[in-house]
């Protein structure tokens, strides 16, 4: 059974993205182990000279490193991913490389009808950067619009069409994780190149 890390893409106390990941954790419990990870509490990324990342980020990096894949659920602020999520990803690319060749599935929930379409595009671009080099599952989008009305009192997805879509994408992600394991010939080089990035002069 695959082990996944699910990153809640916000530091907000109330988040329908957290709800979505909690639902996936429960709903797919017989197919995969999903650990939820919070980004709240990380300090603002400031390129510390000693190249050390905070203990919380270190723990996250370790969890991701040991996982078969990562699920990130992002809100959308100002047509893009929230600063808090960008901040976490900056820490997770600073002289560490947990995302190198790591399979990633992106989901997103928003109060409005669009369901974070632009933030997901933004997040793809970030994860594809030379500092992170994740393997993002291509041609798959899960947008949960009107997210405040999307769950019942037990935290289950109400809309059966949406649920079928999510189940399909999750099954695809399981397969994608297996396929991606074979795409690792440049893994050592990728990790070295990430490590060699000169952050001091950027």
């Amino acid at each position: 059974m695959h082990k996944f890390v699910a990153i809640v893409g916000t530091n907000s106390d109330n988040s329908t993205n957290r709800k979505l990941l909690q639902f996936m954790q429960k709903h797919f419990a017989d197919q995969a182990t999903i650990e939820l990870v919070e980004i709240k509490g990380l300090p603002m990324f400031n390129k510390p000279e000693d190249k050390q990342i905070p203990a919380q980020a270190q723990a996250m990096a370790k969890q991701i490193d040991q996982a078969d894949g990562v699920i990130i659920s992002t809100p959308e602020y100002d047509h893009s991913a929230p600063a808090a999520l960008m901040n976490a990803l900056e820490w997770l690319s600073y002289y560490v490389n947990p995302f190198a060749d790591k399979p990633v599935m992106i989901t997103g929930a928003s109060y409005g009808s669009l369901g974070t379409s632009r933030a997901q595009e933004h997040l793809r671009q970030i994860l594809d950067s030379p500092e992170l080099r994740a393997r993002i599952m291509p041609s798959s989008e899960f947008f949960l619009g009107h997210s405040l009305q999307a769950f019942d009192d037990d935290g289950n997805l109400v809309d059966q069409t949406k649920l079928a879509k999510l189940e399909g994408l999750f099954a695809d992600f399981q397969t994608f994780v297996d396929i991606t394991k074979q795409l690792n010939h440049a893994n050592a080089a990728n990790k070295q190149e990430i490590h060699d990035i000169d952050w001091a002069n950027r």
Partner: protein
Amino acid sequence: MKLVGIAGSVADKSYNRLLLKYIAREFKDVVDLDVLDINDVPLFNQSDDQTDSPAVQAISNKILAADGVIIATPEHNHTITASLKSLIEWLSFNIHPMSGKPVMIVGASYYDQGSSRAQLNLRQILESPGVDAIVMPGNEFLLANVKTVFDENDNLKDDRTVSFLKETLGKFTKFVKVINKMNEKEDPGWQSEDLESHGKVETTVEGVDMHAADWVEKAAEKTNAAEGDDYVKLDRGLLTVNQLNYFLNSMPIELTYADANNQFIYYNHFLEAKDMLAARTPGQAGNPMADCHPKRAIPHVQQVIHMLRTGQTDMFRLPVPGMGPDKYVMHYYKAMHDAKGEYKGINELVLDIMPIVQYYLKHTGQMLVKDPDADTDAVSGASTNTKPEKTDAVSGASADTEPEKPAEPEKPDEVSGASANS
């Protein structure tokens, strides 16, 4: 042109801040660029609203007061830094100071790409509805290989880069003017100034008759106003109401406060009306401005107020003759604004400047002579951009005649140098 510069990095060593500082220095004749620090801005969290924190407020106020913004962005992970994004999120959550603001994007990076993707991304973010900034199209300024492009004095080495930057900045100053023109509210014209004070502003005391002679007492009671030995915290100091009165009543200037609703709400009452340069009586305080001016003067008063309210001028000067040959009475109308630049009313200062002129002449051993080439229009101050067709009746004093000629100075003392006595 007043601009603020924001470097999208919290790191101590930032080439993007270096670039902004360079622009501020090198092009100080073109723009007045204030480079802001974003280090103290907390990470955005919608569950922990820190919009009112000093760091966010300071930046917001500077942006509001500026004509435009230049943002210099590094590129981390194919996008802008979390610290810059976090600031933008604060500025699009409960306040929107960037709305309608002209923005120019520049970026420096260590690599060949020169923050190209971060710049595109920043454009998209700034144009989202919560931020609502207006980003100058085209004119990408990408400074690559930053480690090698500055000399030891932190100046850009390459002449072509400097001239491209100058050209881009020149275009931006035009862009700022065009966008700010577009943002201007339709001017309703000076006729819209309501001297009967029918409207209200935040401070208007409602339910008290503005025309009443005891408006001050009634309004004070209604607002439970501080008085006597009550302390008032001021910028910058702490005085009791009594101390404030000692202070204002010892000014050798007659001061009048008319609020943004054109209500006359205060004057420093240290003289009886008959001894004042511009007569006021205690019962007038609280009156709508229409009460304090003759009908024929109303259009001119409206024009002056409107110029001050709309920022066409910040101060309007008016000599008011008729007080005798030994006086030269000036009325100064100065617009008052809050920290956000919002119009808060007029400070009218009335004083006789003749003693000042006499003092100066006496102590520098000089005398006044007539200038044969003088423009005889001595009525309106030099600083006004536009003036009402006829300004002479603004104060309501009988000022239809030319100002009196200043009196001939006394013979100066034997002192000669400008600083001889001091």
